[in-house]
């Protein structure tokens, strides 16, 4: 494909300087919100981390590096992250392998169980663990045991379960594509099954594996919901940011730790983007899809693994659901709906706020990422390259850091954005830009596939750019756009970290309610809130699925 298309018809040599500037205009227009809502807050964080009582300097960093407590927290973070990521990857690989490459029964059911935690607030794992193994948990109460899960191992177990579905999605996509011919030649050459796995399967999924490792790493090191709930006295970097900012209103320290958090997350995100771009080149158009063959022993072993992991995932989610319906967990286990009365401060309002924010984020998010991807594809210019960078930059930014940046950047009446500061709109916007990279990459892939082939056909038939977009590109893009909207909706419903610093008493969202209630010891009510979130997401997914089916789009993946 050539980069030049129909409507850029003025020959390059004749193109004036003004035309060149005009070609940059779309990228600049689409890039402005990204500058305002990503770069600007980040610049504020960076600036604030260097600001000391005696002007700009490295004093904050020096103070931190000389602080033994801080070094211990950093060590804690890495100890949690490396172990959780490693365990989660092994589990997710085995599970994805079982689902994609074996003939075990109920593979679709297992697939659904694996992604189930994505429908729940991001601290549901800790919530479930507390209900089961906490001081007043079911196990300790029922058997009179003294298991103490709070601390390192609690965080690790919660984190493993938290990132498992993300790793599963990536690895399952990597394992889904396979060229049967390679396996046949390995077999012809006399390779044993184990050898074929080591020499063919593992190398073929190395990019997916690397991507999954880095995603898990970023997710765990930036997660603060689970450590807050189940960490006890064990503090990690993410929870320390929260303590500094909310607990002690020490913004300088918060930003410094945020910067420390940003560096490993940014490195991991950059490597991940580089690596996942290579995944696609592995499959040529002549390859033949691999159909898993029956192998009793292997399938039985994989089934056992899948059952165990599913049991862990389900027990967490189900215990939360169960706890929301009993009178007083774990003392009076009689059925009761009293926790759904929501006789707490804001009542059920946070749930409505969440839905409102998520719908708004879905709408704004779809437009924002699609516009960015479209402009980059259609108006190539140096500005478009900058736009690409800005579009994937948020993948490197921890949610809390972005949220903190918003406080610092917009919490001043002199800033025009102050008008929406403290409203639900700014929360929706934070979610849009926090998840921008992922949505952008989905729509970019789709637009690339569509545009090359049909734009020229449309142009030669007399279609203008606008007509082509409305009549061809948009209808073909529609299922993808729905998928992206669902993605923004789901993540906005469950996220904590991007919004934790932005909520006010009037704009509290459901996931934060879960955290606060849990923190206060109102575990049953927290569970009820979680259940409401899960139910909302499932209802929306079901409705969208039915709608898409009715419109004839059956092969659209809604869970990303």
């Amino acid at each position, binding site marked *: 494909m*050539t980069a*030049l*298309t*129909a*409507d850029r*018809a*003025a*020959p*390059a*040599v004749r193109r004036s300087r003004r035309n060149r500037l005009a070609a940059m205009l779309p990228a600049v227009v689409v890039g402005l919100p990204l500058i305002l809502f990503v770069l600007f807050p980040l610049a504020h964080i960076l600036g604030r981390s260097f600001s000391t009582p005696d002007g700009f300097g490295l004093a904050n960093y020096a103070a931190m590096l000389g602080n033994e407590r801080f070094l211990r927290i950093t060590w804690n973070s890495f100890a949690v992250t490396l172990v959780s990521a490693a365990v989660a990857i092994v589990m997710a690989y085995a599970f994805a392998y079982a689902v994609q490459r074996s003939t075990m029964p109920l593979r679709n059911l297992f697939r659904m169980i694996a992604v189930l935690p994505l429908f729940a607030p991001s601290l549901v794992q800790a919530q479930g663990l507390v209900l089961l193994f906490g001081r007043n948990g079911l196990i300790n109460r029922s058997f009179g045991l003294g298991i103490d899960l709070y601390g390192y191992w609690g965080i690790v177990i919660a984190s493993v379960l938290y990132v498992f579905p993300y790793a599963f999605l990536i690895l399952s996509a990597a394992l889904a594509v396979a060229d049967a011919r390679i396996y046949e030649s390995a077999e012809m050459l006399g390779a044993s099954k184990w050898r074929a796995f080591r020499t063919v399967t593992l190398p073929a999924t190395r990019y997916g594996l690397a991507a999954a490792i880095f995603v898990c790493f970023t997710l765990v090191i930036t997660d603060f919901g689970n450590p807050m709930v189940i960490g006890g006295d064990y503090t990690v970097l993410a929870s320390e940011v929260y303590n500094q900012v909310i607990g002690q209103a020490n913004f300088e320290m918060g930003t410094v730790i945020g910067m420390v958090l940003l560096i490993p997350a940014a490195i991991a995100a950059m490597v991940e983007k580089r690596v996942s771009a290579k995944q696609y080149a592995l499959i040529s158009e002549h390859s033949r899809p691999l159909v898993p063959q029956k192998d009793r022993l292997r399938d039985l072993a994989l089934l056992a693994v899948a059952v165990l992991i599913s049991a862990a995932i389900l027990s967490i989610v189900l215990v939360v659901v169960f706890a929301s319906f009993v009178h007083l967990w774990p003392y009076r286990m009689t059925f009761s709906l009293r926790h759904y009365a929501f006789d707490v401060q804001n009542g059920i309002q946070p749930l409505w706020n969440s839905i409102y924010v998520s719908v708004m984020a879905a709408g704004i998010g779809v437009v924002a990422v699609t516009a960015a991807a479209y402009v980059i594809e259609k108006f190539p210019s140096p500005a478009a390259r900058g736009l690409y960078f800005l579009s994937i930059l948020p993948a490197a930014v921890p949610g809390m850091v972005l949220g903190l940046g918003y406080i610092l950047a917009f919490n001043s009446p002199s800033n025009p954005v102050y008008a929406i500061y403290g409203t639900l709109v700014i929360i929706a916007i934070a979610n849009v830009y926090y998840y921008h990279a992922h949505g952008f990459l989905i729509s970019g892939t789709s637009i690339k596939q569509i545009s090359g*082939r*049909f734009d*020229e*056909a*449309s*142009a*030669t*038939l*007399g*279609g*203008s750019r606008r*007509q082509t977009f409305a*009549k*061809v590109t948009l*209808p*073909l893009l529609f299922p993808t756009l729905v998928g992206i909207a669902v993605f923004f909706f789901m993540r906005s419903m469950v996220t904590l970290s991007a919004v934790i610093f932005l909520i006010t008493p009037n704009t509290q969202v459901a996931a934060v309610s879960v955290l606060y209630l849990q923190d206060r010891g109102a575990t049953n009510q927290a569970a009820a809130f979680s259940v409401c979130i899960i139910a909302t997401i499932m209802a929306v997914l079901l409705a969208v699925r039915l709608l898409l089916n009715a419109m004839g789009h059956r092969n659209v993946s809604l869970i990303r």
Partner: protein
Amino acid sequence: MTLALSHVTKRFGNTVALDDISLTIERGEFICFLGPSGCGKTTLLRIIAGLELAEEGTVTLEDRDLSEVPARHRNFGVVFQSYSLFPNMTAARNVGYGLECRGRPRAEIEARAAEMLRIVALSDHAHKLPSQLSGGQQQRVALARALAPDPEVLLLDEPLSALDAKVRESLRLEIRDLQRRLGITTIMVTHDQEEALTMADRIVVMDTGRIAQIGTARELYDRPASRFVAEFIGRMNVLPVAGGRLAGLPLAVPQGATLIGIRPEDVRLHAGEGPPGRAILPARLTNTIYLGNLAHLVLSVEGIEHEIVAEVPGHACKAIADAPQIGLELPAETIKVLA
């Protein structure tokens, strides 16, 4: 409707895709761009369509310069190699798309689409989506779609190469027939010489970004201007000559000629020494390839490095093969001077 290209040049980085191409196409003509892969056929077609910009040179239609006219205002119909039908539209809507973009009334669009689908014999498939049509049907819809807005010129980029042999043959006739009926100026890109020979009024043979020769199929076959054309169109024995002699035998060619060509079917073979008084070389049979009604005899001649292929009727083959001695005659009127 004359379409004229003058001095069109196009580079991609360091590769010169097109080098100073000039060409005039008459109204209603069917022209084929023929050449090996990578010689610039597609690039030239895309420049004519307005999908690509020439660095130098102009494209004019009836003396109107098209350089500044974007593809969508040129009103040229294009059929792409990979159909490129819009997958979200039925066959009928695909065909009506050009008129839809021109803002014509609905009734007119529908009538025109139905008419075009009837012309390509797909009326029964009007309401199918592209994914429900066979490759040949899709390409016919693409043809109908390109023709529906009544374009000034029809451009086809290897429209048949993705289809199997049977469909390709019937579609060849169909396209040619339709083109004659509508009298539309047409340019088709192909690297299949048989396709070019059977369909085109004139063929433009291209070689690495340049025009090697322009002419009718007959002209190119009978009077190739260069070794490249001679070998690209049909088969040719290419033989070096010096001082008007080939292996010592004087030939009726200009003294300065260095390279001559003769088609296998023009080589005359004699069992035995052949009639006296004619220029005949003694030859030895090295291989025989039977093609049913015809046979290709591969011969070697003392003093000539290359083997010479002669085409003879299948029944005449045995007499020559069994002869103790073979005489090889190059009739003067069939010798083509290539350099």
